[in-house]
């Protein structure tokens, strides 16, 4: 009780004072001259010669370098990836969503890419304003057509903007998260660097036979 441990506590905080900060400065990071030069792949002198404006800015600690949050491949982000060519319109995702936020309107007789008949999709809206990103829709999808997105930057100013319409889903870059998709992990797919080019790549390895399908859909569920 003589205050020695208080001094020890001060020592611990001082140890942390000299430690490097652990903050991730998302979305961009303030850098000095060295950092700015490194981001452009030049030496500091090279930066001063090539881009004096940016060099001065960097010397005043005003230059920024974009920084990404370290994410893992299984990250359940809000930018869903949907492959229309794989989707049969079975609405399993809509059915298994605990909140019922997926709206699907189909018409019979869509394009037949997979085995069996499929529906044409008119509406496939996901209301991510109410989504809790549990990923059960992805787990429920038997044809691996719907995937969680790997990124999370789809934010808007209005609630109405939080509904992802089908056109956006069609046009969005195909960067699926490997959540509940072991096939992506097996071949080392990195959603932060590459995209799914071909809808065949997104599927599981073994194609279910019609018999298996019936087993799965009629007998078990």
């Amino acid at each position, binding site marked *: 009780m003589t205050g020695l441990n*208080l001094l020890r506590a001060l020592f*611990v905080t001082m140890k942390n004072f000299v430690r490097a900060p652990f903050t991730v400065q998302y979305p961009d990071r303030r850098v000095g001259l060295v950092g700015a030069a490194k981001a452009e792949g030049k030496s500091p002198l090279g930066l001063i010669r090539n881009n004096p404006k940016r060099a001065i800015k960097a010397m005043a600690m005003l230059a920024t370098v974009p920084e990404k949050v370290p994410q893992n491949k*299984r990250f359940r982000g809000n930018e869903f990836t949907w492959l229309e060519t794989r989707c049969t319109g079975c609405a399993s995702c809509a059915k298994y969503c*605990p909140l019922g936020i997926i709206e699907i309107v189909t018409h019979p007789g869509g394009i037949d890419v997979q085995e069996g008949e499929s529906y044409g999709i008119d509406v496939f809206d996901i209301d991510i304003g109410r989504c*809790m990103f549990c990923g*059960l829709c992805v787990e429920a999808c038997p044809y691996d057509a719907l995937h969680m997105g790997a990124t999370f930057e789809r934010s808007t100013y209005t609630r109405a903007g939080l509904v992802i319409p089908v056109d956006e889903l069609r046009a969005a870059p195909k960067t699926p*998260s490997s*959540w509940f998709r072991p096939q992506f992990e097996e071949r080392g797919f990195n959603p932060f660097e590459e995209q799914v080019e071909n809808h065949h790549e997104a599927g599981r390895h073994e194609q279910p036979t019609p018999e298996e399908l019936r087993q799965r859909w009629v007998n078990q*569920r």
Partner: protein
Amino acid sequence: MTLKTEPITINIGPQHPSTHGVFRMRVTFDGETVVDLEPIFGYLHRGSEKLAEERTYTQVVTLTDRMDYVASMTNNQGYILAVEKLTGIEPSPRGVWLRMIAAELQRIASHLVAVGFLIQDLGAWGTPLIYAMREREKILDLFEMLCGARITNSYLRPGGVFMDAPDEFWPALDILLADLPQRIDELDQLLTNNEIIVARTINVAVVEPEAMVNASITGPMLRAGGVDWDLRHRDPYDYYDQVEFERPLHTASDNNARYWVRLQEMRESIKIVKQCIERIEPGPVRPPEVPFLVRPPAGDGYAAVEAPKGELGFYLVSDGGIAPYRCHVRAPSLINLTLLREMLVGGMVADMFVSFGSIDINMGEVDR
């Protein structure tokens, strides 16, 4: 001459920096002393138990995440154990080891939050809290690797876990386990013998062990009173009977003891995770025959786990359908609050929040 004094009634919460969520207390003070207290809760009631009756067994996992959102993994574990008991599913060994690792990591994360916020309530301007949170972030990063989410994990499924851990998980876990003891030692050095903390916490809000047993209080709060009651040891679930760990006990039953027990439990959890890593073997993470839509026979099942806050029990009644007929949660946060009035009355204003924080409640679980 006697001064005329008058008790003053203050409404603390639901919007108050130290009530750990939307908790409200109507407190009567005599000067700085608490003379009466009435806890009021229900501000975060979302009807999880009722919602569970409308969801399939797998969908309810997502609801349990949101009960104690500081310790989702153990919530999942409790619920999944109840479902397994109800349906008679035999879980896959690898899935069980994985969920034990996840649950123990979650316990460390939750205790870090508890210790950090206890010190925050003491008025340390967030420095120990930030240190604790920094370590918790590393654990949450591991969870992100495992299941893609940091807080609301939904990692467990009936029969195990939904997906095996990725390859990069194991080296990251080794790094964390090598680093974490030093960080806990640092917190220990910063806090345990700190004269101000000792003066503030010792012999404050002492609860008798008998009273705690009568109020069915569980968890670190009970163990701080010297009662050796840990479900992992008393009623081993999963493979807790196959790992060796000590149960830190303290006799003082005051705020300092509760803090100390949590700090030691983190060290024990690290031990358990290390044993799990040694024991885990390749194999399926859940039995392939378990369908997505679990349909248990009619009946009921109760399973309880030692959550970071105490005994977390799920009681499920099935009518043979795809959704539970009734789901009841024995929430440790709510039950540990039973003795709140006895703990706080007679104490000072400043101790009120510290003692309240030392129970380590989570409003998501209290109100459900």
